């Protein structure tokens, strides 16, 4: 049995997902980073983007994360985000509508990015 790391994905107002995983891939400001058990202690700033968690059961959990932090120490990994959603929770049609609306209103770049991240997370599922 491969080593495992414990993952806590928490949003500001709730705990989104927690469990054991073998690999976590997230996007920091300086590029994608993959964390496996035994990684060096790490604290990074996350970009908006999908986070992929390969669970120890062999499944894959994808979540859309909008800003936040990743911190890893002692085989415990925490992903902190102001807003985080699991890909199963995302309403694709709503996200698509939001993306179109955000595109037509050129000034709303953050809404566009949010909708885009949601759709990418669903696509990566």
């Amino acid at each position, binding site marked *: 049995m491969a080593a495992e790391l414990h993952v*806590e994905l*928490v*949003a*500001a*107002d*709730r*705990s989104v997902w927690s469990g054991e995983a073998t690999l976590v891939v997230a996007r*920091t*400001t*300086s590029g994608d*980073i993959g964390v496996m058990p035994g990684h*060096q*202690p*790490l*604290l*990074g*700033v996350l970009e908006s983007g999908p986070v992929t968690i390969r669970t120890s059961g062999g499944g894959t959990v994808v979540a859309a994360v909008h800003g*936040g*932090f*990743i*911190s890893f*120490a*002692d085989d415990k990994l*925490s992903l*902190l985000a*102001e*807003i985080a959603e699991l890909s199963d929770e995302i309403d694709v049609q709503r996200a698509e509508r939001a993306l179109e609306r955000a595109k037509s209103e050129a000034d709303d770049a953050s809404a566009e990015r949010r909708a885009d991240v949601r759709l990418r997370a669903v696509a990566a599922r």
Partner: protein
Amino acid sequence: MGAQLRVYKRRIKSVTATKKITKAMEMIAASRVVKAQRKVAASTPYATELTRAVTAVGTGSNTKHPLTTEAETATRTAVLLLTSDRGLAGAFNSNAIKAAEQLTARLEAEGKEVDTYIVGRRGLAHYNFRERKVVESWSGFTDEPTYADAKKVAAPLIEAIEKETAEGGVDELHIVYTEFVSMMTQTAIDGRLLPLSLEEVAEEKPAKGEILPLYDFEPSAEDVLDALLPRYVESRIYNALLQSAASKHAATRRAMKSATDNAGDLINSLSRLANAARQAEITQEISEIVGGTAALADATAGSDK
């Protein structure tokens, strides 16, 4: 029915209606306290993890940041006061306002200028009535604050603290809110949010004796701290908003419970008075009848002679 009795009956009816309303408000508040408490609990993991991260950066690097360095002579401070939009909560708002005023007096005694920021219509009304200056105020979300609300409140405060004092920025940030201790106890407390003293943060950490690992910072310790501290302030404000909301509902529940109890007592004493009035009326009627019959009997006896 006599006039007196009618008046009592009418008052009993009106107090009964009031009692029904206060009872309903008590029950609504009770259910909202539970909901608010759940929200406080749900926000805890984020706050703890964030505190851990801040402690890690603070102890793991010698980074200097405007949010952690103390100005040698603080000349201007910001005070954020959390009140509620609606009253009917006993002394909830006045306690918070009193605490804020004490803090303001203390800071002014230290020779600092105080900028006041207010959340909640009640606090704002109090300050406006006294024509005191309020830099910025927010209202409309105190019953169920969301994280977006906390961000909205935190943004100008963080901006003010990052600005130079000479340009109208502030050196310190204090927050006054009502801490939810238990269903029965809520206390208005004040605390300094910024500049952050990392020793204090470290003390708050529950697991004592845990050695923090040497973190690798991505992209760099400064950048991480830059991104981390505003989030930390937001999360603290969010937590304070949630606690304040829970406290407000608990205070409302208590106030409405005593209002219901008082209405019950009032109904009791009014029904006693109404009973006495009815009895007096009956007694009077009887004595009138008896008196009438006696007079009639006397008259008949007289005419017989």
